[in-house]
């Protein structure tokens, strides 16, 4: 608790601190490569034959996903409170790579916890993190995926709290993490707003994002919550809700308290957390950032899911029609667009958060297709 209070204080201070904000903006521009483009996907639009589809290209941010926005922000906060070491959990490896990158940038020691199952799926990212000077520690307990990596990172943090900051990668966990991560990600929505007004002369009709922990979705949605825009969050439907092998917390979960916050949780009748499945490691998680249940229960955001197969086919569709290989996580958001766009009129506008690039997934997809690389 003292560590969370210290962090809360430092974060609120940084929000008002001109030097901090100046440094963050400078790094966003010169290091991360912001603003990321908002791209009109004309061939995909034509192919689906309905609404105009825009992609917010977070895949073009440094390290290939939106995760860097939060990692750089938190590492700056960690520096301000005098921490010499940062740790993080990672599922798909994107947040681990982003944290290792930000740590290298700031000259901090870095250790990343990753489930052994995910290390297998994302071997490329494991090597990237090591190249960046981070220590990658395998987590072989529990389901050996993201939730177990978070457990292990929390254990490390309680042990080394005096020297270490925990760069939690999503809008989850105890306060102030959900708030802080949303704040560092909300640059996505702010840029999108300006860019879509430039491109279309007005706001979009739909915003769509995939939801694992939910940081890329919060980052896109937050700026638009008070606008008259429909928003859709897409969870991982895995092999289908009826199989029990999925990570769709709203479709298959109930309220629980897990890893420091109350939210929807995939759990059994005795309150033990259930194993999850998704083709995408970044969505393979038993709970969801606590602001999402709020947005859902107030009716502000609609949540749905896409199955592994739907995501895989969207992954290939975008690659072929636009020359953009999306992350499997982002492919879940695309799968919803594939269902939605054809039924909309040609003057309606959809913006998807293309939260990451798919290079990390290429080997995994080849394996699924039975192709030996």
């Amino acid at each position, binding site marked *: *608790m*003292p*560590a969370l209070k210290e962090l809360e204080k430092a974060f609120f201070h940084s929000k008002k601190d001109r030097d901090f904000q100046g440094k963050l903006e400078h790094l966003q521009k010169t290091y991360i490569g912001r603003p990321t483009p908002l791209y009109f996907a004309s061939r995909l639009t034509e192919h689906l034959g309905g609404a105009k589809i825009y992609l917010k290209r977070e895949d073009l941010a440094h390290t290939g996903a939106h995760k860097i926005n939060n990692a750089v922000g938190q590492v700056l906060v960690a520096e301000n409170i005098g921490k010499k070491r940062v740790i993080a959990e990672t599922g798909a490896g994107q947040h681990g790579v982003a944290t290792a990158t930000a740590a290298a940038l700031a000259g901090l020691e870095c250790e990343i916890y990753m489930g052994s199952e995910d290390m297998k799926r994302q071997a490329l990212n494991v090597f990237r993190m090591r190249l960046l000077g981070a220590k990658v520690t395998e987590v072989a*307990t*529990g389901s050996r995926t993201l*939730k*177990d990596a978070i*457990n292990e990172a*929390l*254990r490390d943090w*309680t*042990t*080394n*709290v*005096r020297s270490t900051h925990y760069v939690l990668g999503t809008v989850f966990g105890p306060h102030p993490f959900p708030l802080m991560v949303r704040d560092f990600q909300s640059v996505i929505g702010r840029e999108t707003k300006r860019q879509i007004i430039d491109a279309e002369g007005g706001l979009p009709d739909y915003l769509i994002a995939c939801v694992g922990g939910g940081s890329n979705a919060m980052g896109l949605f937050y700026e638009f919550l008070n606008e008259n825009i429909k928003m859709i969050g897409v969870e991982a439907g895995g092999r289908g809700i009826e199989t029990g092998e999925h990570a769709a917390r709203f479709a298959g979960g109930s309220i*629980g*308290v*897990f*890893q*420091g916050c109350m939210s929807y*949780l995939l*759990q059994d*009748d*005795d*309150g*033990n*957390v*259930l194993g999850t499945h998704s083709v995408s490691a970044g969505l393979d998680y038993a709970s969801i950032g606590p602001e999402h249940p709020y947005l859902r229960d107030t009716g502000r955001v609609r949540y749905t899911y896409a199955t592994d197969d739907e995501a895989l086919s969207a992954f290939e569709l975008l690659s072929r029609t636009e020359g953009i290989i999306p992350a499997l996580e982002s492919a879940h958001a695309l799968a919803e667009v594939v269902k939605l766009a054809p039924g909309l009129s040609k003057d309606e506008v959809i913006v998807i958060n293309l939260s990451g690039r798919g290079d990390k997934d290429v080997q995994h997809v080849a394996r699924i297709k039975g192709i030996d690389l």
Partner: protein
Amino acid sequence: MISKIEKTFKKLKKEGRKAFIPYIMAGDPSLDKTKEVVLLLEECGADIVELGVPFSDPLADGPTIQRSSERALKNGVTLRKAISHVKDIRQMSQIPIVLMTYFNPVFKYGVENFIKNAKIAGVDGVIIPDLPPDEAEDFIKLSREAALDTIFLLAPTSTEDRIKKIIKVSKGFIYYVSITGITGTTLLLDGSMEVLISKIKRYTDKPVAVGFGVSTPEEASAVARVSDGVIVGSAIVKKLYESPDELKRYILSLREAIK
């Protein structure tokens, strides 16, 4: 009203002794064995037994108890079963029992029902390591009404305000976590524990028991000198799993060391 746990500490104080509080995981290797071990612990002079409830994500626990928890879950042990197991133990033993469980199973069970049924079964106190007192208002209030002790944790990093708060909401005893970190980590006996416990003692005469990281009789003895009780968990769980034949001798050596 004075609780069974408080009575135990009072009696020990009068006799100039310190409490020995062993921890075991309910259902590892089996619930039958757990009952047997509780009786053995009592026979060997334990004052209070801390009974762990397995959970899928034991955040505060190190590898030894994590694995023990996984084994107990595989045996189908749940919070519900742990509670009815206490009822079963109560047929043969009246040793004070403290349940250690994570919060989500309690939340899912229903806080009110949990407290009611735990009390009926004969549980004396509850430790929930991932429930900070800031979020525990209902839990504390309902536990008081049911005369179930609520034991909260203090750590070396706890601030003055935190110490006062934990003292206020703890009943039975205060659980001082000897290290920053998880169960089963190596203990550091550098005199800092003594300083921190005397800091706690400045504000309260409630008993302070120390846990996390105590494994050898020498450590137990050193910790007993500066506190009111010693909790030994991972080392016992490990012994029970790896060499159960040596358990009794090990327990006796701990008992001998805690004076």
